[in-house]
């Protein structure tokens, strides 16, 4: 039954992708990418990946579009160059497609329960999470405890992106925003969005915190929560102007948040070593190992949330504070 939904959504996905490639206007292409991410999130939800759908919607559709748009405002709106070596690339690329198509026929069908992927490691997670960690959401359990080291690496990927963007965009000649007159164009016209924005921002932050601490019971967790809270602040910055947003959350505080979150996650691991367990072994955090695991998961999810929020916001402010030269 779900196959019909999947087929419909996937066809829509392919059409959006082709539209992204063909449009000359980059602004339209970025908007289509946001639609593409939303369709992808809907598709993930149909395939029972609730956490991933939430992440794809929050990060894919939300933050990526904002970053692309702020970069577009600094560069060009239209694509001018023609496609180079068009047919050669189509030839090379369709060979890869044929190789992949050839590989599909031995793959298990969609949803086939006795596919090898469901045999070896997955059932162990499904059986042992209630016993060892006792939280309903198995994905959060695997993400933060069984494969916690992966997520530590992941937090440092976000941190690397944050310092990377700050390092690249702090180079010399960008005009800093401070000396630019704060009065954004047509302030009077923004009245209604400002009022609605002021009404909504607290609820978005509240929802972000709900997703953060609800991560063990339902779809949610640090990545999604960080992205949602970052989106709330970005909305605030868009409506109130960048100076007010920076007054609320100064750049140093954002970098501090990114550093603090990453260190919090790492320090939990080091504390586990100090208490005699292996790195990131939360069961030593408390006399009862199961409660220790839960404490560990809550703390590192908080670390992830803080890092992602701080990193995404400092990236956003790095782009917007760099006025375009044209």
């Amino acid at each position: 039954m779900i196959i019909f939904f999947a087929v419909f959504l996937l066809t829509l996905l392919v059409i959006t992708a082709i539209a992204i490639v063909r449009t000359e206007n980059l602004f339209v292409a970025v908007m289509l990418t946001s639609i593409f991410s939303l369709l992808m999130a809907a598709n993930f939800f149909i395939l029972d990946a609730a956490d991933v759908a939430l992440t794809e919607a929050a990060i894919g559709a939300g933050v990526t579009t904002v970053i692309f748009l702020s970069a577009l405002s600094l560069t060009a709106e239209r694509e001018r160059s023609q496609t180079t070596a068009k047919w050669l690339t189509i030839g090379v690329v369709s060979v890869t497609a044929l190789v992949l198509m050839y590989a599909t026929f031995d793959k298990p069908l969609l949803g086939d329960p006795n596919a090898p992927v469901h045999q070896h490691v997955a059932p162990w997670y499904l059986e042992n999470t209630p016993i060892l960690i006792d939280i309903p959401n198995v994905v959060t359990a695997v993400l933060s405890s069984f494969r916690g080291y992966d997520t530590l690496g992941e937090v440092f990927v976000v941190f690397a992106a944050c310092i990377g963007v700050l390092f690249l965009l702090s180079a010399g000649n960008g005009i800093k925003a401070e000396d630019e007159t704060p009065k954004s164009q047509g302030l009077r016209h923004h009245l209604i969005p400002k009022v609605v924005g002021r009404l909504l921002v607290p609820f978005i932050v509240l929802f972000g915190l709900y997703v953060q601490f609800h991560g063990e019971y339902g779809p949610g967790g640090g990545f999604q929560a960080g992205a949602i809270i970052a989106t709330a602040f970005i909305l605030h910055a868009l409506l109130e102007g960048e100076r007010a947003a920076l007054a609320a959350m100064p750049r140093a505080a954002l970098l501090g948040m990114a550093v603090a979150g990453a260190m919090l996650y790492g320090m939990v691991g080091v504390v586990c070593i100090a208490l005699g367990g292996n790195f990131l072994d939360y069961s030593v955090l408390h006399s009862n190992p199961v409660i220790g695991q839960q404490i560990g998961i809550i703390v590192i999810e908080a670390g992830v949330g803080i890092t992602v929020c701080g990193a995404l916001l400092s990236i956003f402010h790095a782009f917007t504070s760099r006025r375009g030269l044209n």
Partner: protein
Amino acid sequence: MELLGYYNYWVFAILLVIGLYTVIAKGNLIKKLLGLSIFQSAVFLMYITMNKVEGGTAPIILKGATDQIFSNPLPQVLILTAIVVGVSTTAVGLAIVVRIKETYGSIEEHQIFEADQTP
């Protein structure tokens, strides 16, 4: 009807090809980054197609339900990480594009190439 089970993998292959084509053929740097994000989204689709079990639900084990079939949690964990990797790479890529625009005055690959030829 059974062939539809492979439809997800075909869409994965098609999206991969569209992304790769955009990255290679298009000259505009931002269009290349858009192609890169499509290319990565295709891989996410492949992983998540693996985790679906017929009649299964999201792997959230509530106290009451005992005989529930669950989908596989592991690909979801991997893709949660991969999505954030994709966003980080795009953010750094865009920062580089902004710097290229400021130093070269253009984000079209052939114009940058010409600017470099005349040192």
